[in-house]
């Protein structure tokens, strides 16, 4: 390593990579070389910055200037102006919505300003493929402390006292899990890192694996010492190729440096890790199903107790924590349980990462202290709803969670408050919805997902999710009956009560919360045969607004079914008998002259 005067930190999380981040990185390297600056300026690919909406992103340090939405064509200008002449390029900076002046510095941008980084502390700062960069920012210091200065019991006590709870869903105290496994006399003992992040709309675990894989490793090695485990498995979804690659590199580097394998750091402790690839099954995120999957079998949950801490992988004591939890551990050991205790609320300590997505201005990953209000996240950090639309709901906790309405915006985000409101922390997906989102359609979406992903072991879950899906689907098609709502509530409750694992036990939540907070939308679909949000295809029709139509023929050309009539400069007309309601005409119209008509009841034939 050598001294450079400036570092160009190119975000290389999946979001930015899918927008062409590696092309930007190559262009920067080429341009830097062309200007003969390669000895002064280093181009680094880092993990996800979290502000995915604005990718590709480059942060210039030490200046702290944040460039966003970069194109390859911008690169020569950027290098010449900023790095050669020292003039930051305004037109590539972030301009907040409804403002005119760009915000040059990353730390001044609202999205970043209110976050508190613990797990994501290295995001956008280190090259995740270089172990020495992780070490430079205090990496493996906690491990050294745990191996040389602390007894296994002291490590467990520290985690217990910190109040850390599982970040993967249910929020079980991590220290208790460890203590239970440590108590077991049998060996070998195993550790599993649960990186089977299956919640649609949640991607914080992927981001941690991509941005800071060594933090996960360090947490696991500390955990291994605490419970006396000899072998660990990192389970990662095959849909996350970049995370898999970075973790492979990290494990190889750790092994080469003697941080994994035999006699770790010369302390006589042995532990090793291997990666297990998932193959796409939502239920394998459940811990007993995950164990089956690591063993190479069908990911079907089993009855608990015995819990994995007693009988886990191949019948041996096993500790399973998710990615975010493992990555939190080194921070607690390094900075002390007292420090961690001081963050968050009475029952929910520390920070939590949320994936803020959907109808929100600033899509991305945010790490905030527990107890922050939904309003602060959605409006303070997220920048509110785009296109001047109204907030309707935020869906928290994935398919196991629920939809919370505007009146709960001041709810503090912690495990207990969310559960009381009918949602759950889950892995931390937050999908924001506006008035153009139909809540019945959302319930249908999750039920479809759940009935598809139910492993089929428990009748209540297999049949319950399917029946609920059929009923809700009928409602969205205008075929609902008044009695359906009571039936849905009953089914949701039974599915909850009679199913064995978390998937079934929470499968009713999307239906129950939408029924609880948005019953009027169900009623509109059933009684008035209309979809207030204009989403459900059977209950809307596309019409041309005569006063806005300019007769430009764009819609006519876009229509795949040839059902729009009208000559140039004449008001167009949609033939309802032929319309397949694909929405192509609405998308094509530049004058907002096509609308889903939804105010009057549409007769179902």
């Amino acid at each position, binding site marked *: 390593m050598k001294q450079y005067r400036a570092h160009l930190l190119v975000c290389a999380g999946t979001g930015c990579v899918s927008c062409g981040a590696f092309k930007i990185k190559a262009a920067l390297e080429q341009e830097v070389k062309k200007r003969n600056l390669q000895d002064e300026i280093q181009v680094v690919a880092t993990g996800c910055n979290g502000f995915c909406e604005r990718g590709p992103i480059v942060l210039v340090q*030490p200046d702290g200037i944040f460039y966003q939405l970069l194109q390859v064509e911008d690169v020569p200008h950027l290098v010449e102006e900023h790095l050669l002449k020292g003039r930051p390029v305004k037109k590539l900076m972030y301009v907040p919505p409804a403002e005119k002046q760009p915000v040059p510095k990353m730390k001044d941008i609202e999205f970043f300003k209110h976050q508190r980084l613990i797990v994501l502390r290295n995001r956008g700062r280190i090259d995740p493929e270089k*172990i020495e960069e992780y070490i430079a920012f205090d990496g493996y210091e906690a491990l050294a402390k745990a191996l040389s200065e602390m007894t296994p019991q002291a490590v467990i006590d520290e985690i217990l006292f910190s109040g850390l709870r599982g970040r993967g869903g249910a929020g079980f105290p991590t220290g208790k899990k460890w203590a239970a496994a440590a108590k077991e006399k049998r060996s070998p003992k195993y550790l599993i890192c649960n990186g089977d992040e299956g919640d649609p709309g949640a991607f914080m675990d992927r981001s941690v694996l991509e941005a800071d894989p060594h933090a996960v490793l360090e947490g696991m090695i500390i955990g291994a010492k605490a419970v006396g485990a000899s072998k660990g498995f990192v389970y990662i979804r095959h849909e996350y190729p970049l995370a898999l690659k970075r973790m492979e590199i990290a494990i190889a580097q750790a092994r080469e440096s003697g941080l994994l394998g035999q006699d770790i750091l010369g302390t006589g402790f042995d532990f090793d890790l291997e990666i297990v690839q998932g193959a796409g099954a939502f239920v394998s995120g459940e811990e007993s199903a995950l164990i089956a999957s690591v063993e190479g079998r069908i990911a079907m949950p089993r009855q608990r107790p015995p819990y994995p801490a007693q009988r886990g992988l191949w019948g041996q004591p096993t500790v399973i924590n998710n990615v975010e939890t493992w990555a939190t551990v080194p921070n607690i050991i390094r900075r002390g349980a007292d420090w961690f205790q001081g963050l968050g609320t009475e029952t929910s300590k520390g920070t939590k990462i949320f994936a803020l997505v959907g109808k929100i201005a600033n899509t991305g990953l945010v790490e905030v202290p527990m107890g922050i209000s939904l309003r602060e996240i959605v409006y303070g950090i997220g920048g509110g709803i785009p296109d001047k639309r109204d907030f309707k709901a935020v869906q928290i906790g994935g398919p196991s969670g629920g939809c919370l309405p505007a009146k709960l915006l001041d709810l503090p985000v912690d495990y207990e408050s969310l559960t009381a409101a009918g949602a759950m922390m889950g892995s931390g997906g937050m999908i924001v919805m506006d008035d153009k989102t139909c809540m019945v359609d959302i319930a249908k979406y999750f039920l479809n997902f759940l009935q598809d992903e139910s492993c089929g072991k428990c009748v209540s879950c297999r049949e319950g999710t399917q029946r609920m899906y059929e009923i809700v689907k009928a409602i969205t098609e205008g075929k609902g009956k008044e009695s359906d709502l009571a039936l849905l509530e009953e089914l949701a409750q039974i599915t909850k009560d009679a199913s064995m694992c978390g998937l079934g036990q929470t499968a009713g939540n999307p239906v129950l919360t939408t029924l609880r907070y948005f019953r009027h939308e169900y009623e509109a679909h059933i009684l008035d045969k209309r979809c207030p949000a204009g989403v459900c295809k059977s209950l809307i029709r596309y019409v041309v607004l005569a006063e806005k139509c300019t007769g430009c023929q764009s819609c006519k050309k876009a229509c795949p079914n040839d059902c729009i009539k009208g000559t140039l400069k004449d008001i167009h007309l949609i033939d309802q008998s032929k319309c397949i309601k694909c929405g192509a005409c609405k998308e094509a119209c530049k004058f907002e002259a096509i609308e889903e008509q939804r105010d009057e009841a549409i007769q179902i034939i």
Partner: protein
Amino acid sequence: MPAKKKLTIQDLAKIREKTKSLMTIREGEGRARVTVHMGTCGIAAGARDIMDALLGEIGKANIQDVIVTTSGCAGLCNAEPMMTVEIKNQPPVKYGQLTPDKLRKIFVQHILGGQMVTDLVLVVGSETVY
């Protein structure tokens, strides 16, 4: 820098010490900020050599918190190559007509030692910005 041998706890601390100095720049904070004026005129007058010498000195001294940036022409082209040294809580100091040797002197005496090299100083303080 692939670590071929297995690390001990002492090695870990050593790596941290060594690499930290190279990485603090990513935090965007430091005790001193040195701006080398690199407009076309500055580069033509040899600002590139000054930059090279400066980076060389920082590397040799193995210090962590000196931030080097560039800026455009400082407007006093006959004094090029120029640089501005800003020590925390002190007014900026501009040096002109630099050579790598003069740079080394400034580096040791001012940037490391905190004492202005008076005979090389062009001006102290900033320009007034309206």
